[in-house]
């Protein structure tokens, strides 16, 4: 079985290369391949049914998938799709992605988390650092100054179970670029929905807790 899989994998690569070498459909093959297409798919076991789920959508690619919890380390929960694409969230705030290409390797979110809880003075600036791997697989960082936008901190809706949801907008910028993250936070502190920036290539990801 292993040998067969290995062979198929090689044959696929070779076919792709042959395509590229002939200048035929080289681009198509590359772009048509689903992210993590070559990955071994993990089976979702029955006991994962009824477990919390997260719907993740990549805006720029127009793709979305359901994720399950595969890891917990301290405050950070890692969610994963069956195709082994993962996001890691600290109190709902994005701290890492894997399996997407151009992944976010790490982020410093301590102050952002405090700001979301209202523990920082309203509108105060705090730094946020994002870590990536560049094209040569070396760690690079981008730093931004962020603040929570004051007027947009509004009660906007209630959930089915009567919780109040507040929408919080966080705006970040460096000299060349700015983006915003939006969080929908229940009054018990849970982030039920969010739209968060991953990086310059991947843009924003939308995350939403799915009930049932």
């Amino acid at each position: 079985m292993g040998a067969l899989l290995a062979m198929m994998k090689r044959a696929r690569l070779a076919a792709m290369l042959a395509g590229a070498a002939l200048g035929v459909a080289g681009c198509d093959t590359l772009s048509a391949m689903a992210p993590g297409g070559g990955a071994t798919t993990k089976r979702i076991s029955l006991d994962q049914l009824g477990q919390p789920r997260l719907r993740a959508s990549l805006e720029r690619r127009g793709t979305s998938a359901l994720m399950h919890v595969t890891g917990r380390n301290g405050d950070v929960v890692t969610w994963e799709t069956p195709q082994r694409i993962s996001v890691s969230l600290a109190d709902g705030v994005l701290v890492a992605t894997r399996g997407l290409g151009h992944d976010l390797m790490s982020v410093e979110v301590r102050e952002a988390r405090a700001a979301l809880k209202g523990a920082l003075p309203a509108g105060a600036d705090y730094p946020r650092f994002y870590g990536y791997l560049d094209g040569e697989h070396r760690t690079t960082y981008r730093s931004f100054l962020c603040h929570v936008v004051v007027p947009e901190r509004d009660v906007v809706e209630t959930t089915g179970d009567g919780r109040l949801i507040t929408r919080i907008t966080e705006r970040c910028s460096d000299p060349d670029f700015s983006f915003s993250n939006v969080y929908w936070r229940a009054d018990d502190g849970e982030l039920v929905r969010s739209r968060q920036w991953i990086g310059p290539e991947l843009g924003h990801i939308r995350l939403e807790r799915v009930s049932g």
Partner: protein
Amino acid sequence: MAGVFGMTSRFWLAAAVVAALPVTDSRADQPLSFGYNTYGYPGMIDMPAAHSRPDGELAFTSSYFAGQFRNTLTFQMSPRLSGSFRYSQLEDIRPQPGAAVVNSRLDRSFSLHFRFIDEGFRRPAVAVGLNDFLGTGLYESEYFVASKTFGERFRVSGGIGWGRLGGVGGFRNPLSFVADGFRRRDASSNPFGGRVNGGNWFQGDAAFFGGVQWQASDKLHLTLEYSSDNNPSEVPSAFEREIPFNFGATYRVRPGVGLSANYLYGSEFGVQLSMALNPKDPPTGSGRDPAPPPVVPRAVAQASDLGWTLGRDESRALESRVAQELELQGIRLHAMTVSGDTARLEVENETYHREAQAVGRTARALTGMMPARIEHFVIVPVTSGMLGSEVRIARTDLESLEHDLQNSWLSYKRAGIGPATGGERPVPGRYPAFDWGLKPYLTPSLFDPDDPVRADVGAELNARFEPVRGLEFSGTFRKKVAGTLDESTRPSTSVLPRVRSEANIYDREGDPAIIDLTGAYYFKPGADIYGRVTAGYLERMFGGVSGEVLWKPVQSRFALGVEVNYVQQRDFDQLWGFRDYEVMTGHVSGYWDMGNGYHAQVDLGRYLAKDWGATVALEREFENGWKIGAFATLTDVPFSTFGEGSFDKGLRITIPISWLSGEPSKDAYVSTIRPVTRDGGARLDVNGRLYEKVRPLHEPELSDGWGRFWR
């Protein structure tokens, strides 16, 4: 089976890959996109300009006008220095002044362009260049050029040229006021090519040239130049030179791809296509490797776990669980022992270009499986049964650093990397192992004057059997499906033993062919020493016995190797038989990782044609696996005996498959481009040489790839 991929694939393959790629150039938003001239080096239309292209850029340029077809591969090997290899077809030219006009001539040439002054606020950039310094001399010229940009859209260049670039409006060489020898330039007649014609550099009459370029829009730039190139071979047989001015317009089709239309010398229209990519910008960024197993932290107190030791059945069960989990990660468990607070694993990375990534994934997987009392993971990367190094990782660090902003360097700093000790019994089920694969192959052949591009395609079967640790039997078999390699009938004119120059007969008669069929034994005779003995059909033209010993301490940037082979030439049909040519060949090799991605290798010894000499190779290696380099071999064979090209030299390009696909893989295209393949300075092509096997498992490669530890 890394590297088996298309050993013989070559240059146009790389060019086609360049053409087929969705090129992403992060510098695309730069307003100035001036590129390559018709000779394929940084410049205007026919003239040079001083600016360099972005560091690492690899470009393929094709230009055509008046029967002059130039194809150039240019590599920006450092921020200041670029090198070009050109293959031209010249029609209706006179190869030497006064010689008869020939209908068509194929010619290879090299160029170097070195920017030694950067542009400043007032100061222009200044560069010096050499053209065709190693070939037949048809394009021989030298120049100094200065370029200055004004605002964001204008560039003005001017310079002084010698040789071909000193042919119009020439004046007495200013250097001759310093030394009289600069006054005269000898006719460049070099029938064999390949010699460095240093005696002519910057000699003879000089002339000025210049031009302006205007970036009219983001996609379009226009060029006007005054050319001092008198085209001595081409005028008047190929075209008439009416005026010294050239006009050009270049349209950027997409980032990295430019299309130019030129009006040259008042008489001819020309076109040019430039395609560039940068190994630093992979199409999928850092790769779409599937998510690694999450770190599973230990519960705060697992008192029940204290003092717990594994029984034999339990440790067997754990071993097989670990093996299964690692297999999901594309990693093979070789051996495992758990004792005290330490788990020691020998692992074989079958998937990741970077060993650090395999180490990271192994460590992460272990956090979910090892009893809580295990605090230290000792991970030993293994290749062909040989222990490469030893990486000690504290489990507490994995737990606390998984989501730390600076987890990459903190985890590296806290890991202990050293020489591997011990060597446990392999896990049951690791040996014996059998592995095979079937895939298509493509073998191009370039630069035959009768037909510059030929190729075969077919099916290739690989098989490998490992009965016990260190012992590998492997074979590669090919069956051609279609191709034109058998059309080559040009007989070898070599006066040396024909060790490589009859390749076309091997191509014609080897169908089907046993490319290689060997037994190899890998072993570690001492600390920092690695050994290999290989016997059988070593490569398509030679069989015999090959032995190698390599000294490479884990932390060292230097390595030293000795290889001795006794081989006999194989029959043209590449089945079982041999021809009656035997040779003892071998080398002492020194390897040096110079840092910043530059690598050097020197081999001293005896080559296949029984000639003695040395090979020097210099490679620029990108951390994502791209390698672009050049090599040259000088032996005691005189240039005239060697024949065309004078000595063996060439370029080597390695393209990692993972760069193209974004999927993790250790496979790579390796292509060697030789302007001419002859018999002097030819080295045996045996599989499994130790340096490339061992180096990825050592420093500094581990630290270079540590960014992928958390990937």
